[in-house]
């Protein structure tokens, strides 16, 4: 991680290379356009979003019973079930499962939850080597960097940079940067990994309470390669991944890949229900702030998220600041509403890394009112004292002026009060407005002054 810099500072650094910003912005906008085409080709798209949102509302309102039902079915299916209150407990559980089998190497498919838990680091400290098998995550892992996007982990990297990493770590020829050739090299290398790992961990996209099965979606086939070759299969899931019945998968699988990348369905949607003969299956249910989020009526809908990444692709701030600027495993608009629930102080900047344009809420397949939640998090963060006192002081001064017509008028006369206040000069040391923008002209008279003279005549 890049120390204690906030989103604005990291975004400013990202913007030092404007060509790269344009390239990053263009790549993600292209995905947004693919999403639009795909949505437009799907009959009843908006009704599907509505249904998905309503199913998830039901899940949130009945989560306790669904979790019990899911647990019971998992056990009936021969799956061992664990419950983890936080990252530490989650990591301990995984470590125990592996160490009891004397396993010191594991392959892992994409799981944002285990990224958030820093599982790889935890296990590495205890002598267990984990390899991420999703190509993008693998690239991020060998570069010792977190994913910058939940669906496209290395979307911020150029192929030449990936070629350089492969040269260093996989011994490819220097200068090799062709995506197909690089992918072939990774395929060969990771096949050997899959063939030799006794344990494989996957994330969970959907967990069906009714049947005790869980669905893992990938395009690469890496989750299946790991799971079907290993003797110990582990899945980690957040409590909110529940769907009530198998038929509800139809709604979510229609929305997920279309919203994510404009594809009609992920290439692989694998339904794991029972271990194969000779195999063990373990599933860890992780709370990590989720039950606490349920207690926040303004924010609990963020638990509906199915991690499609659509809000990131459409967010102009994300596109022009890069995922790593969010200094959180889950970046972009959804990350900005999930992170403060976990650590408000550390993530106090994220709800402000938005113009509240609202595009995120419109693409969201489960209709989370993301931009409304960003606004509401701002209120909570200020009330709980996580904003600079300087800002609070100027806001109070502004509130006083704007609630008094007399002060406001006097202030306006003496040199256009507004030019010295909102939004130009708050927290202003060097006036960031003027850095790359001219100040608005100051007219001879305000409308109020004009109206006092001319209003009655017109």
């Amino acid at each position: 991680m890049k120390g204690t810099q906030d989103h604005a500072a990291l975004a400013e650094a990202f913007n030092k290379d404007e060509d790269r910003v344009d390239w990053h912005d263009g790549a993600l906008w292209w995905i947004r356009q693919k999403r639009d085409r795909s949505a437009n080709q799907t009959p009843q798209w908006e009704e599907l979003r509505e249904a998905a949102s309503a199913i998830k509302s039901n899940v949130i309102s009945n989560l306790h019973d669904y979790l019990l039902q899911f647990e019971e079915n998992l056990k009936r299916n021969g799956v061992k079930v664990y419950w983890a209150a936080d990252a530490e407990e989650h990591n301990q559980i995984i470590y125990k499962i592996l160490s009891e089998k004397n396993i010191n190497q594991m392959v892992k498919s994409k799981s944002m939850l285990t990224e958030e838990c820093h599982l790889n680091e935890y296990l590495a400290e205890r002598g267990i080597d984990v390899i991420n098998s999703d190509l993008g995550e693998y690239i991020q892992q060998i570069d010792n960097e977190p994913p910058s996007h939940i669906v496209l982990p290395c979307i911020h990297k150029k192929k030449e940079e990936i070629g350089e990493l492969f040269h260093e770590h996989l011994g490819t020829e220097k200068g090799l940067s062709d995506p197909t050739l690089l992918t072939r090299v990774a395929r060969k290398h990771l096949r050997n990994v899959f063939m030799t790992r006794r344990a494989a961990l996957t994330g969970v996209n959907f967990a069906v309470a009714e049947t005790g099965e869980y669905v893992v979606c990938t395009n690469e086939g890496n989750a299946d390669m790991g799971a079907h070759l290993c003797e110990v299969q582990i899945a980690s899931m957040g409590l909110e991944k529940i769907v009530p019945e198998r038929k509800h998968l139809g709604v979510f699988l229609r929305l997920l890949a279309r919203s994510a990348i404009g594809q009609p369905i992920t290439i692989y949607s694998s339904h794991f229900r029972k271990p194969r003969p000779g195999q063990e299956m373990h599933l860890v249910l992780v709370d990590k702030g989720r039950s606490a989020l349920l207690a926040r009526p303004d924010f609990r809908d963020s638990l509906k998220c199915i991690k499609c990444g659509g809000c990131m692709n459409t967010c102009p701030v994300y596109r022009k600041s890069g995922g790593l600027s969010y200094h959180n495993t889950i970046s972009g608009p959804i990350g900005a509403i999930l992170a403060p629930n976990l650590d408000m102080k550390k993530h106090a900047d994220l709800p402000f890394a938005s113009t509240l344009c609202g595009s995120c809420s419109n693409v969201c397949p489960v209709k989370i009112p993301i931009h409304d939640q960003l606004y509401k998090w701002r209120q909570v963060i200020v009330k709980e004292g996580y904003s600079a006192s300087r800002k609070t002081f100027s806001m109070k001064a502004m509130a006083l002026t704007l609630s008094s017509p007399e002060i406001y008028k006097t202030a306006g006369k003496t040199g256009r009060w507004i030019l010295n206040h909102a939004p130009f000069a708050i927290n202003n040391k060097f006036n960031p407005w003027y850095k790359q923008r001219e100040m608005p002209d100051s007219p001879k008279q305000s409308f109020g002054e004009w109206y006092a003279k001319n209003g009655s005549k017109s």
Partner: protein
Amino acid sequence: MKIGLFIPCYVNQLYPNAAIATLELLQKLGADVSYPSKQTCCGQPMANSGYEHLTQSCNDLFIENFSGFDYVVAPSASCVLHIKDHLHSHADEKAAASIRGKIYELVEFLTDVLKIEKLDACFPHKVGLHQSCHGLRGLHLAQMSELVAPDFSKPKQLLNMVQGLELTELDRVDECCGFGGLFCIAEEAVSVKMGKDRITDHTKHGAEYITSPDLSCLMHMEGILQRNNSKVKIIHIAEILNCSSIKA
């Protein structure tokens, strides 16, 4: 029909011509408009920064100024949306609710309440329309590109009534300009980059003017245009709609 004209603080002080155009346009269309002189601001600058709890006296002042009207009209989508979504009062919530229900942004007031079908206006220029996000996704002044739903646009409906005006295209029809209130300062780098990219989209399609129902977006883009010595100008939609054929 008594109309209270709400001129947001920054429009009042920095863009009086847009406010005058709004007043004149409404009067031309036969409306009985007056401007309560004790008005200040909708409170959005504080609220969007997380200080909604400091806006109570601002809200009460707003209610005091505008309770007596049948409609409240303002040439600023963003401020109107803020009032619609966040005007509350401990003292008189009924009055607050009433205002939330009768406040209109100028464009929607013309298309939905006055239901105007023609305008005596002329503006012989190539004009790019900037959809302010609050006007678009908040007030639904036009269809949003993310949704699978029939197309419509209230600002275009009006601009199409203006003689000589040619609307220019955009690659990204409703992308945010990056103003975002305090965002334009707190996130200066991204804000300016977003603004520059919006401007480029307009200029590459030949726009001479960029117009919008929101001056805050335009003020931000104007700052960037002027810094880069661009010939492209910004103009509030009221000024175009009020541009008489004689002047042109």
